[in-house]
């Protein structure tokens, strides 16, 4: 093995830095899944009748569905009866300020380097931190309220804005959509809700931190973002997960609705625990995220699956970086469904595989008959580190309109030895050189991220690859 290869192996072979468990008293309901559990979740959250009905409809539909098998990932069958479907930190008192948050929770965030207090004070980002399932602290709420922006936890929105929930919940991802989305619809515990009124431009980046903490707890998040006519919002979501031995399940649903001339920018960083070097542990993550450009000239640019471009002149953008290490497998990608005229979409996907990681891009670009003048550009690049990893590209392209124009490009390569040599020759050590090259590889995506997040993303990237650079 040549020297740079060895250095690479050392870098990618390090332990997961964010693996730690916080002891917080938890309020759990029994393991398993049946109608009573669904009712119990709904009752615990004190939900109105329509929510319970919606959940039950979803649950009954779920019973008739089969687990999909088309993914290029392998995992032992999941026993859905052997999971907890609800877990919340036990303190049920309504919190007025961050000071009242369980110090352990705050400490966890501190370890992650995203201290809430810090963020609130320094960065001006409003964070709706999700620690397991119940929101523990929401910041900058008052400031957003002045503009009429609603940014709160999903359960709060159900209580306070049931009309909006009723109107938009399931409008993009119906409860019958797919196996995991249906499961989510039945048992989702909490999530974030954003509503931007007509013509309002959100003055700050909205952000949520997800973090799976209680072991064996399926985390079912539900996010709903609505941008009314002419509104603009940029939304961030990031995840890190602690080290666990049993595989954990995550099945989230994110719905974005952009009305006429509205624009939503949705960004996410996922840094799930990849399992250890033997492939033990790690997170199962099955997510349905979908945006709907319902209005004319609306725009969604984002970093995860599925965009329905329904309004004329609407725009969908997708930027993604996926890193797999150890025995991690990722099968990710996007769907761009062009329905309206002159709709445009861009897909830029960068995959990095290290160790035994298997990284798959699977995307669909569909241009319907009525979508004249539709335009798509897709680019998927893969970077391979280590000789046991894999990178796969499965793009599906379906075009039914002659005036549509689409291009797809993909490349797969490893870090050039000449590039490494060039850096090392100039006194940069192998570790920094690899970091530099990988960051350069991802730059096209990172530059689309909001400033604060881009810095964080780069940090996460280097952590997941070598565990020491901060």
């Amino acid at each position, binding site marked *: 093995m040549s020297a740079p290869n060895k250095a690479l192996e050392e870098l990618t072979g390090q332990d997961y830095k964010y693996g730690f468990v916080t002891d917080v008293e938890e309020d759990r309901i029994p393991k398993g899944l049946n109608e009573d559990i669904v009712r119990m979740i709904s009752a615990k959250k004190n939900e109105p009748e329509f929510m319970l009905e919606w959940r039950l409809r979803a649950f009954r539909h779920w019973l008739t569905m089969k687990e999909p098998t088309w993914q290029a990932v392998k995992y032992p069958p999941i026993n859905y009866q052997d999971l907890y479907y609800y877990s919340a930190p036990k303190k049920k008192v309504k919190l007025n300020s961050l000071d009242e948050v369980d110090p352990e929770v705050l400490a966890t965030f501190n370890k992650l380097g995203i201290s809430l207090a810090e963020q609130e004070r320094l960065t001006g980002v409003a964070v709706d931190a999700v620690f397991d399932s119940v929101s523990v602290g929401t910041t900058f709420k008052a400031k957003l309220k002045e503009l009429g922006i609603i940014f709160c936890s999903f359960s709060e929105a159900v209580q306070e804005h049931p009309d909006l929930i009723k109107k938009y919940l399931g409008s993009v991802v119906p409860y019958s959509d797919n196996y995991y989305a249906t499961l989510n619809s039945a048992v989702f515990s909490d999530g974030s809700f954003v509503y931007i009124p007509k013509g309002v431009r959100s003055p700050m980046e909205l952000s949520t931190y997800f973090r799976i903490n209680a072991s064996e707890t399926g985390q079912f998040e539900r996010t709903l973002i609505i941008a009314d006519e002419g509104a603009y919002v940029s939304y961030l979501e990031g995840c890190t997960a602690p080290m666990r031995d049993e595989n954990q399940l995550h099945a989230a649903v994110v719905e974005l609705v952009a009305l006429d001339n509205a624009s939503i920018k949705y960004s996410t960083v996922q840094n799930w625990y990849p399992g250890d070097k033997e492939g033990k542990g790690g997170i199962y993550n099955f997510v349905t995220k979908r945006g709907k450009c319902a209005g004319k000239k609306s725009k969604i640019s984002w970093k995860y699956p599925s965009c329905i471009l329904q309004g004329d002149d609407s725009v969908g953008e997708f930027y993604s970086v996926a890193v797999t290490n150890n025995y991690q497998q990722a099968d990710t990608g996007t769907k761009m469904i062009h329905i309206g005229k002159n709709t445009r979409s861009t897909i830029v996907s960068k995959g990095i595989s290290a160790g035994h990681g298997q990284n798959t891009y699977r995307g669909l670009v569909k241009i319907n008959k009525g979508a004249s003048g539709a335009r798509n550009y897709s680019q998927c690049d893969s970077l*391979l580190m280590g*000789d046991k990893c*894999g990178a796969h*590209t499965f*793009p599906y392209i*379906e075009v039914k309109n*002659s005036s549509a124009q689409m291009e797809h490009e*993909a490349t797969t*390569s*490893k870090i050039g030895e000449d590039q490494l040599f060039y850096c090392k020759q100039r006194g940069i050590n192998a570790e920094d050189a690899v970091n530099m090259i990988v960051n350069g590889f991802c730059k096209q995506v990172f530059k689309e991220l909001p400033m604060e997040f881009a810095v964080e993303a780069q940090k996460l990237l280097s952590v997941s690859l070598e565990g020491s650079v901060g």
Partner: protein
Amino acid sequence: MTTSYQQAFEKDLSRDVPGFLRRLRNEGMERFAKLGFPNRRMEEWKYTGVDPIAQGDFHLGGDKEVSRFTLEEMHRMAFCVLPGPRLVFLNGHFHPALSDLSGLPAGVRLSNLGQALQEDSLRVETYLAKQVGFQDRAFAALNTAFLQNGAYLYLPRGAVLTQPVQLLFVSHGNGAAVVSHPRVLVVAESQSQATLIETYVGEGAYFTNAVTEIVAGEGAVIEHVKLQGESDSAFHIASIGVHQERDSLYTSHSISLGGALTRNDLGTTLDAEGASAIFNGLYMVTGRQHVDNHTSIDHAKPHCTSAELYKGILDGHSQGVFNGRILVRPDAQKTSSQQTNKNLILSEDALINTKPLLEIYANDVKCNHGATIGRLDESQVFYLRARGIDAKLARSLLTYAFASEVVGQIRQDLLRERLQQLIFARLMPGKEAA
């Protein structure tokens, strides 16, 4: 509808066949009966439904009509008959009178597969049904069940054929819906070279289910042209499997112009260092034609290269499918692979589904693929029109140029020119290529 094939199979097999072939054919029928026709729920057949074939009532053509097929008719139906050796088949039956087996170098065997089964049975047994597996491919299994006729070419070490070998498969049921299962086996020993031109033509409604197997030994150079000019109401299914040894070069030109429903499965395994494969393809369809090209390049060993260019021109209500798979196996380091699929849509109602796949399990590789779909560049049309060329001719010229990138790579001058003329005539009825 597998029962009618089962009955035909039992009737057909009652004749005298060598033991290993009997076993093989029985196995083929068993597999086919088990698999049945593929359906659109299968990923490999997602965009192509074969109901018209499954529901159609096709019969094996008898060999009596063979004598009625004349030289004039052959020249009328074939794209172009080049000088050199050729084998002609009608409805799957060998036509000795129109075939020409003269002028071959010593040691080279070219014959009807049926004859080779008698004369060269050991070698045929070694290679037959190994390059195109039929365990999970219904149509290949069906072909194997009816394996009897076809072409056999054997090139001994160092043999170089200067003239191309032409294989002409004609389907002409005289009103009856016939089915044929042509089989081609090419075994090229080390350092041998040959060009193979496989042509499929016909009249009326019929079903061709072909399987071609090619074994390229060390350093062998095989150029393979497949012309599909079936009638507009015909169904054409072809599976081509290639096995490549060290430093061999396999070049494929696959041109699909006819057929109501066409499916090509072309796959090669680069099984030793230094092997390379070049896949060129053109599909040009209109009306309600459906054409599906599945290609697969398996980089099983290090230091192999492959390049692929498939182009599609879709007019009318036609549908095109491209599915290109590049697999780089673990340890197939220093692989270099390129794949391009470009599609031109000429009408409002045409449809294209393209899926270029990269599956890579090695790290020291250079692979890329690209796919484009679009219509003619208006600025180019404008450029030509500004120079006094009318709009229709301008569009035809640009489309012709688009197709030429593929056709222009065929090395047989006569054949290339004939194809270019044909394509131009289709774009501009009534005008000849300059």
